[in-house]
């Protein structure tokens, strides 16, 4: 019998409960997160028009760079000021 040392961090993924989804967007504040990929803004501009035409409030956010995780302060601001968020993930 061979005994080897575990080369992994030995972690078990923890299940995270997603935030409750709003049943309706009526009166919701929707955050639009631009991750700073080229032309993500074009997509989000169009979304903003569409959402505002339906009477929703839109707040725009932008990550400093697509190559690093969003700063914790930005994540907190989105979480506390929006009911829903849409992220433009790629160019």
């Amino acid at each position, binding site marked *: 019998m*061979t005994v080897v040392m575990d080369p992994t961090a030995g972690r078990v993924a923890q299940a995270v409960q997603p935030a409750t989804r709003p049943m309706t967007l009526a009166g919701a504040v929707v955050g639009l997160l631009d991750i700073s990929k080229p032309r993500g803004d074009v997509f989000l501009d169009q979304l903003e028009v569409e959402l505002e035409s339906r009477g929703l409030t839109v707040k725009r956010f932008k990550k400093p760079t697509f190559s690093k995780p969003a700063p914790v302060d930005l994540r907190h601001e989105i979480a506390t000021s929006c009911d829903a968020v849409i992220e433009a993930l790629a160019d």
Partner: protein
Amino acid sequence: MVKRDCPTCELVVPVLLELLTSDADLDVFVQDDPSFPDLGDSDPIDDTDLDFSFHHDIETVPTLIQFDAGTEVARTVGWSRDDWRALTGQTAIGESLPDSRPGCGSLSVDPLLVDDLRVRFGGSQLSGRRIELAALEDEFEAAFDRGWTDGLPVVPPTEARVLRMLDGTARSPADIVATVPPNLVEVTVEQVAINAVMAGCKPEYLPVVLAAVEAACTSEFNMHGLLATTYFSGPVIVVNGPMARRIGMNSGTNVFGQGNRANLTIGRALQLVVRNLGGGVPGQVDMACQGSPGKLAFCFAEREHDSPFTPLSVSRGLAPDASAVTLFAGEGPTPIVDQLSRTPESLARSMASVLRATHHPKLVIGWDAMLVVGPEHGRVFADAGWDRTRLLGELDELLLIPGRELVRGAGSIDEGLPPEFHDATLPKFADGRPAIVHAGGDAGLFSSVLPGWVGGELGSDMVTVKIEE
């Protein structure tokens, strides 16, 4: 402490009998045969499991140790009449023996046994989880089955191998090396050592691996983004200083290729750390569109002894006698072939023309690159007195590009810069780039470009870390 298989131990048996009949309080331990030596009324103490020998660091038999209230106060190894008499206070022992005889090797340091002994008696210094493989499980297949490999077989990280790997550093196994992305796991020296074993490293490579892990996990290098990007790049490790020579790294012929254990296994160990400890699994967090074969392992030493340039690590602020790793986010080499230029001006133009085309001839500033100058090209610069600063300055000038060649639509190519840059003049690379390194074999009028990922704040900056020896 004695063993039967030792002529010096047999020689001292009469002395042991003399001591037993004196007022000395003597215990005789034996390593190999509990019936040896014949002490008459008393029996030797069986240390065939080598427990006592291991824990008292016995390297030679016979070893005579004096204890006072359980604490060692003196020892002598082999046979020396003067030393034995001084240590025991028995001034008449061993009269008929020769003055001295060297001892034999202790079984507790026998190369064939020592690894097992270290696991049995010293394994507790490892805090990681032990995994028992089933008797019918092939140990190499087991690593594949558990998702621990990069696609090639790995060396099974047995406790003995991990303990031996840890001999390569003075650092404690429990020391934290870095916080490894993407799962942001604090990893210990022991955990890095386990992965270094799997990569095929020798213990003397471990300090280089530790430095590389530390460098990769800085926010400047941004291993997280480098892993997650759809782009090609992975960490490229450049090693400078005496350490590279001492562990036999390749800075010469076939420098980016196969054949050198240190180059390949150090590069591989970093990637296994990111995969197994950080959780950076291809196709999950590593979303490279095409990737690069260099993501298996990409590590080489700079050819310093005949370089026209200061070593990369020195250009980045380290002392010339320091060993260091520098991490660059790049991919496989693009050749620069120029077999006719004999002036630095012409050669620099050749290099600039290839550098201009990296990533895309119409994309500028954002992307990074490393220029690796081969020795035969390097000699052209050396003969003309061009150092790193001079070459970089010349390249900067040669790589200023009119905006009209770069804008979208220019050359009937849609890719390019927005139209407002039409009348601007733009540099191919951001200030201070590309990095310049000297490496390669004696023959061949070749250099290369290692194209890189996005440079700077938006992507990755080179990071240099001193290797703790």
